[in-house]
């Protein structure tokens, strides 16, 4: 186990070139989450269009893991139908709590698989989950899907 397994190329790329990092024009729900031990911050905004697709924007500052995770999340779930987005979030949360024992499914998680190494560093799991918690909370506030409140905690 070494840092290179933690900081995979995909993570570094998302950290340096974040996707979806902008406020949402007509947000229906917003959630600000902070990791009080290290000060990572992220605000996620969500909206749903007429076709039932989810739209996501975010702002944030923090470590590479939290910010790359936000970028991966925004890129992946943008435009997804709500139930698929929820499934992706579930899979990501499960991966983070797996202690490295779960083989991530790239079909479901896309770039999210790069976070597999994070699960072995307990102090960093919170960083990776932060934007996903914000997403869930923002959806709940907007009344968009997710019957699984609180699970990402």
């Amino acid at each position: 186990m070494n840092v290179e397994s933690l900081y995979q190329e995909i993570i570094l790329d998302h950290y340096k070139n974040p996707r979806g990092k902008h406020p949402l024009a007509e947000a229906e729900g917003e959630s600000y989450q902070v990791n009080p031990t290290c000060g990572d911050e992220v605000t996620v905004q969500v909206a749903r269009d007429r076709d039932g697709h989810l739209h996501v924007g975010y702002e944030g500052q923090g470590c590479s893991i939290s910010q790359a995770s936000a970028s991966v999340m925004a890129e992946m779930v943008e435009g997804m139908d709500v139930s698929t987005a929820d499934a992706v979030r579930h899979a990501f949360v499960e991966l983070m709590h797996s202690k490295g024992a779960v083989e991530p499914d790239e079909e479901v998680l896309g770039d999210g698989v790069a976070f597999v190494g994070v699960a072995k560093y307990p102090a960093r799991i919170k960083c990776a989950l932060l934007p996903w918690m914000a997403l869930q909370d923002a959806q709940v506030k907007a009344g968009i899907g997710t019957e699984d409140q609180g699970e990402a905690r």
Partner: protein
Amino acid sequence: MTKPLDVARIRRDFPILQRTVRDDRPLVYLDSAATSQKPFQVIDAESDYYRSCNAAVHRGAHQLAEEATDAYEGARAKIAGFVHGRPEDLVFTKNATESLNLVAYAFSNGAAKAQHGDDAIDPRFVIGPGDSIVVTQMEHHANLVPWQEVCAKTGATLRWIGVDDDGRLDLRDLSTIIDESTKVVSVVHQSNLLGTINPVSELMAHARAVGALGIVDACQSIPHMPVDVNELGADLVAWSGHKMLGPTGIGMLWGRPEVLEAMPPFITGGSMIETVFMDHSTYAAPPKRFEAGTPMVAQAVGVAAAVDYLDALGMDAVEAHEHVLTGYALEQLRNVPGVRIIGPQDDHARGSAVSFVVDGLHPHDVGQFLDDHGVAVRVGHHCAWPTCRRFDVPATTRLSTYIYNDTSDIDVAVDGIRAAQKFFGV
């Protein structure tokens, strides 16, 4: 002349420093401001107490109880002596946070009781609207949040002494901050984030001049330099055992006898009483008044062993050793392009906690790289979030040294920082 520390010999006393971390790298422990490591002398003292004379103190009519009480009170005397205080003026708590809360609650409890007609409360502990409490902008949350709570409960106002760009207190407007309305001045001796050593005796003199009680958070000073509580000029001084080679689970509060005597209790129950009736009670004299319940005897014994250890080295020598390491760390960090030190840039009136940020890198990522090199540092806001905000940084990475570190530890850390910069291409 103080004898320089023999770091190689000292390191042999610390079992944990023999272990490796992350793929068999030697442990480089640079997180002593968070908690220090423990020499076997401390570990053994605690375990010997349990092996040989464990019993409930101050009660029981048997030999073990006598020996346990002696061990506990003997520890109190030794620890008090370490800071030039008297044993009867030293209160044991769970940690410095509890010591500071004990004091803060004396004010909110005092105010509440006075409001309900208890005129036996010393007016110094009766606080309310129009009164002010003064802290600094570099407090640990442990010396900030309890005072925010006191203000919320009593209507008093919180004021603070600002911090300048070099991480020093801005004392220019002191007389408008500490004034006739001030009832409490509570300040950190050495900042755990910035490393700044504050002119506390000067601040305590200001407190005294306006009739306010003066409190010093000495968590980061007592483990690292000679401290004489009388010279500080404070009414109350709080610190923790675990940062001075002692075990976790024990903190200290020293107080001027007359102040302790006047102070309302915090946690109440057994062991802190004088008499108890169904409808009221009277309280024991300090320090027992502030030690409700079964105390942390083994931990007190452990801190006493830590005091023996530090006394044998000499606190002058400890201070001199750390001064050299601090100067070295500042110099080495300054040589790394992109590294900015948060806190005093020079080693004058400065302790060994050195915080810094690296351009383009988040402290968490710096810490991760250092960890990969076997270096243990703290990252984050170090429980001094407003201080981070003052410097417009979300967090910092902090190196902090102690008696078992030498300059080679700092070299390993600096190599780790350079490796992180290289890896992230910044």
